[in-house]
């Protein structure tokens, strides 16, 4: 029964997609997924539109997992993903053969609002982050900050940023405790809300922490060392929340998808990666 329903939904989707394709100049290349990868791909797509007349649609519905779902269901040809692929991606879509091309590296930063930063919170231990996430630490003064309540804006489940964070903190996103927090979706939303809300903390792509309105705090190790999401630390993998930025296709990239990915891997594309604050793909360890 369910299968029939799903097939119906899929058929409806395909008809709509076909209609959309007919109205555009040729079949568009549909790209969907992570808001972290998006700025780079959007700029690369602009170049291809101008130079080669390609039609490329870039969407960010549901983040990395949303992109994988779109790819698996045939609603997109390329998924933008800002976390390592996990076994569920394959088990959900057994017929697909996902091929990931790493175009860059990024770190997930723990970002705080200006008042928290100026109040003296420059680094947090893993245990403190856990306390903040689970609601046990309710006031910043408990971790050496100002006397202000903690507002934890949690990245939605399914976002690459959240999965990397949960993987670091609990070993496995599935092992993360059940918490009830206000949620944020895209990087844009996280950035604007943390900068506008006193006493707030959230998980955010390191490249988006500008150090003016939102600040990336370091991670304090047991031996007192503080790990910051600097380019060098992300490249050599010493920053624990490093992650790959990837373009995923079903099977090896072909046609327009190949043109787009080839551009991203070329020196011009890699310059776009750097320009947006991420680390280039050619060097560095695959962050896992």
């Amino acid at each position, binding site marked *: *029964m*369910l299968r*029939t*329903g*799903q097939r*119906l*939904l899929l058929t409806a989707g395909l008809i709509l997609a076909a209609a959309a394709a007919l109205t555009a100049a040729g079949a568009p290349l549909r790209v969907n997924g992570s808001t972290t990868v998006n700025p780079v791909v959007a700029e690369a797509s602009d170049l291809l539109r101008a130079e080669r007349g390609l039609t490329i649609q870039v969407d960010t*519905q*549901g*983040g990395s*997992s*949303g992109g994988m*779902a*779109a790819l698996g*269901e045939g609603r997109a040809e390329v998924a933008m993903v800002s976390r390592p692929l996990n076994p569920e991606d394959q088990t*959900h*879509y057994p017929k697909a053969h996902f091929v990931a091309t790493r175009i860059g590296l990024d770190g997930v930063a723990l970002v705080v609002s200006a008042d928290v930063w100026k109040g003296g919170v420059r680094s947090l231990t893993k245990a403190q982050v856990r306390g903040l996430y689970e609601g046990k630490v309710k006031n910043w003064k408990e971790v050496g900050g100002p006397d202000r*309540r903690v*507002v934890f804006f949690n990245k*939605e*489940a*399914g*976002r690459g940023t959240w999965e990397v964070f949960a993987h670091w903190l609990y070993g496995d996103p*599935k092992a993360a405790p*059940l918490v*009830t*927090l*206000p*949620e*944020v*979706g895209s990087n844009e*939303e996280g950035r*604007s*809300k943390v900068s*506008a*809300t006193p006493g*707030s903390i959230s998980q955010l792509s390191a490249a988006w922490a500008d150090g003016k309105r939102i600040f990336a705090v370091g991670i304090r190790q047991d031996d007192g060392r503080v790990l910051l999401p600097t380019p060098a630390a992300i490249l050599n993998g010493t920053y624990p929340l490093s992650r790959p930025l990837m373009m995923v296709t079903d099977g090896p990239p072909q046609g327009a998808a190949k043109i787009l990915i080839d551009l991203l891997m070329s020196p011009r594309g890699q310059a776009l990666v750097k320009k947006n604050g991420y680390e280039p793909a050619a060097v560095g360890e695959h962050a896992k």
Partner: protein
Amino acid sequence: MRNTGRRRLELTRVASLGFTALAALVFLGMLVLFGVESLPVWRHLGLGYVTGTRWFFRVHEFGILPMVYGTLAVSAVALLVAVPLGVGTAFFTAEVLPRRARRTVKAAVELLAGVPSVIYGLLGVLLLRDFVVKLLAHWDPLSGDTLLTGGLLLAVMIVPTVMTLADDALSGVPADHRMAARALGLTRAETALQVAARQALPGLVSAALLGLGRALGETIAVFLVIGRQDNQWPERLLSVQPLANAGQTLTTKLGGSETFIAYGDPLHWGAIMGLGLVLFVVVTAVSLAGASLVTWGGDRA
């Protein structure tokens, strides 16, 4: 000549019947689709799906009551603000303004109704969040993302709908009735409030209901300012405190990333489709009530 005219009429009748049937079929099809897709969750939880107050998809707990509450709370706030404003404006345009000015004002208001909702959402993020924090200072909100913020934003969005429909209702009152009232010595204000308002009452109520229909279904604007915090079932229903907390509505849940994760897990997917079904039924009921009042009012006029 007469023959072709009749044939054309026949064609029109068949075509309109056909398209009406098609619309009805699509509507029924959607209802059935949502029903079938959400079947696993009804089978698994039964009514507990509607009465449960905990939603943790990773352990397969699906209770939608806090989201139903969130939807009702933001809609109630929206109506409380938008109906007096919208109907009040309609009295002004329909009863006070000269006809030419009325058209201009109405066109301007209807223009507001056409602004994409994401624009309203971004304006809400920019302007409304700080305002609400100050407004609710006594209840000490954690951030500017609250149910009240969502409700106020919705109010701004539905005022044009309420206003323009209420204006239609008031302008629909026949001029004879007004003239008769004036001839009997009623003042202009008495004519407006006692004659026109009473006659237009079904239309005014339906304006509010159609505004409510829009409020219930609105997603992206509310999504940006409500905080999207699950499981916010208030301890006391009738107090201001829950409005100062972040929350979640049926639509903001559906607009979130969970919709993309749910696929592939029949129970989770069923729970998401169940949200759609509940929303669909509620919005349809409200819109039907609004539309039938319009017809009723039209019959009476």
